């Protein structure tokens, strides 16, 4: 916890500040993200009540940014959680069982790694309709692979440690050994990779939304905002630069913190 107040952790502060803004702004802004101000289409920044102006059909940019950030982060956290649960369950089972079970389970992961997975996710989106639920289930299902590999490696290494054998000799049941000896000792690494998964998921969600295959209107996300901005960039560059810059800032901060955490635990 003390690390939170360290000055070196500015990226974490930036992320927390952005999250806070994304949560608070929609409540206090005079405009909602889908409300059209017919008097101010493509309004420049700081015109009237529109701090960052409006887009090509007169919606408030700031309100849309806040709403988009919220959706993007929500999807990211949810998908990262899916990857955490699936990855730990798969990796810990493979690592703990060992032998042929491990061999088969990890071959499966290897095979999936070799797939052009983004395309499979896109196929899923096309086939089962473009719901936000499917977006994060799909992404979580891609991202668990790395988590499973990391967790499995950790469990394999731990299993050889004598304190696990000593626990067995002490009569501790298997399930309790996993819960009390193994999992607490991989929590740090799993947390670090969870942190690294979040920016990955943000990237994938935005990518899908950019192509029109992810989050659907009337909902919005940073990817959709970038897409809208790119389509209209010759008229109002701000429409591209604001969501693009925000997205990059988020990704950079999350990556820096995640890598730091990973370096601590490995």
């Amino acid at each position, binding site marked *: 916890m003390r690390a939170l107040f360290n000055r070196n952790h500015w990226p974490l502060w930036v992320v927390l500040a952005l999250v806070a803004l994304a949560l608070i702004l929609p409540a206090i802004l005079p405009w909602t993200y889908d409300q059209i101000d017919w008097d101010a289409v493509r309004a420049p920044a700081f015109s009237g009540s529109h701090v960052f102006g409006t887009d090509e059909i007169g919606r408030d940019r700031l309100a849309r940014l806040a709403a988009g950030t919220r959706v993007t982060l929500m999807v990211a956290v949810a998908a990262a959680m899916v990857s955490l649960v699936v990855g730990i369950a798969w990796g810990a089972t493979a690592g703990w069982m060992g032998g042929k079970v491990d061999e088969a389970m990890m071959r499966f992961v290897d095979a999936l790694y070799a797939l052009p997975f983004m395309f499979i996710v896109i196929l899923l989106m096309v086939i089962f309709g473009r719901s936000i639920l499917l977006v994060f289930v799909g992404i979580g299902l891609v991202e668990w692979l790395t988590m499973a590999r990391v967790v499995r490696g950790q469990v394999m290494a731990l299993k050889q440690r004598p304190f696990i054998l000593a626990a067995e*000799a002490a*009569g501790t049941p298997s399930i309790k050994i996993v819960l009390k000896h193994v999992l607490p*000792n991989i929590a740090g690494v799993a947390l670090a990779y969870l942190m690294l998964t979040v920016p990955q998921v943000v990237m994938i969600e935005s990518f899908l939304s950019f192509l029109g295959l992810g989050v659907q209107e009337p909902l919005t996300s940073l990817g959709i905002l970038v897409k809208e901005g790119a389509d209209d960039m010759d008229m109002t560059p701000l429409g591209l630069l604001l969501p693009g810059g925000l997205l990059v800032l988020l990704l950079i901060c999350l990556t820096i913190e995640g890598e730091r955490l990973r370096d601590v635990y490995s």
Partner: protein
Amino acid sequence: MSVYEIRDMAIQIDGKRLVEDVNITVEPGKCTAIIGASGSGKSLTCLTPFGLTPGTASGSIKLDGIELASANAREMHLARSRYTGFVFQQPLTALTPHLTIGKQLQEATSQAGPQRLSRQELALMLERVGLSRADERLDQFPHRLSGGERQRVMIAAAIAHQPKLLIADEPTSALDASLRGEIMALLDGLRVEHGLATLLVSHDIASVENHSDDLIVMDQGRVIESGPTVDIITNPQRDYTKRLIAATPRLTEPAPVLPVVGDILMEAEDTTVLFPRPGWRQGKIEAVADASLSVREGEAVAIVGGSGSGKSTLGRAVAGIGPLTSGTIKWQAELLPERRERSLAMRKLIQPVFQDPVASLNPRWKVGDIVLEPLRNLSPELSSPERNNKLAQALDDVGLGPEYIDRVSTSLSGGQAQRVAIARAIIAGPKMLVLDEATSALDPLVGGAILQLLAELQRAHRLSIIFITHDIASARRLCHRIVVLDAGHVVEMGAMAEVVENPKASVTKLLIEASKR
């Protein structure tokens, strides 16, 4: 005329003085040995003058006329490439993995000048260090060679450019016990043949006493004692040296008086352990084959063998923490099944202690919880105060005070951690301990103290012990009988005194040779 002379050397890292007042002289054809526990500064002392550690050395360090303490880049290059050869501890990692043996040997030869050797000459160098099929080896990558072979390659490379000084930093510590004698003999032979001045570093006083002319004992960055090896071994002046010599087991010391033994408690018959081959490959690896072994009440039995002999696997099968493919393990009349099928009552009989004390303790647990773990499972009937009494008693038995109960396991030293592991093993009142190299990873003084503690526990609790080790001299301090394992087979067994006196199997002879060092 000395080749290498260090006067009043001090070594600093990041402003901290880690080594002080070191004086060393090495003469051509002679060997000077530095011994000390880990953290004594012995490796820093021998590597820092050559810029191979992060530290800086001050004082006077003369290598054949070059002053290393103030050497410029050209002189340092000369000192490293022409005058000195190095042999390091880990032959596994000390060779570059992606270059063939031939290429690395060629590099080592030409380091002193632009002289390239023919293939035959390179092969000859390998033959000289005792490698067979030398020509074939030139094209092999290091990972294809065994540990002993790699160390021979390291030695060949270290003397390829005909240096004047050879620095050997724990050259045999990472090798299998049965190989250590050969490698030391090789180093001795080359030293005499080439008139090499040798600086030998080791943590083990017994391993250098027959191979060095002069001895330097270091502790905590200072030289405790130095002089001719024979004088120091036979007549040590300083208290530290005396304790060190007393703590180091050797086969020449008088045999200890061991407690009397009772009836047979544990009997393992035709124990076989097979492991599946990794991957999808067919077939099994036979780790232990038809090994039989019995242990009486109050008796200590040594299982001795090199690495890969199956000694740990056999011990784990007996302790019920490793697989058992076939054969029977009986406790008196009762059959002990494999691993997870053992009942709690059976678990209570046998407890293990492992080699690496730090890895033996869950890094996230406190000492109290660690020691209590067996008691909670195996004696659930005890009340909380009764448990706490047992905890205090167990810690007291291993020489630790109650203040350790709340210590985090990661804050313990190796010796303390091993005491905690032993307390955990004895708290539930077992009849037998399986000790797997329990003293091998510890510094000699600490290891000696743990051996002492085990001997006391053996008497006080009438404990039976299976003592797994590669070092017959340590086993002799504790054990009545000895079982020698090689490639999974029992090749020799008998009373300790008889086997040491008159070994039959070749492995036993090698291991005894290694223990004599």
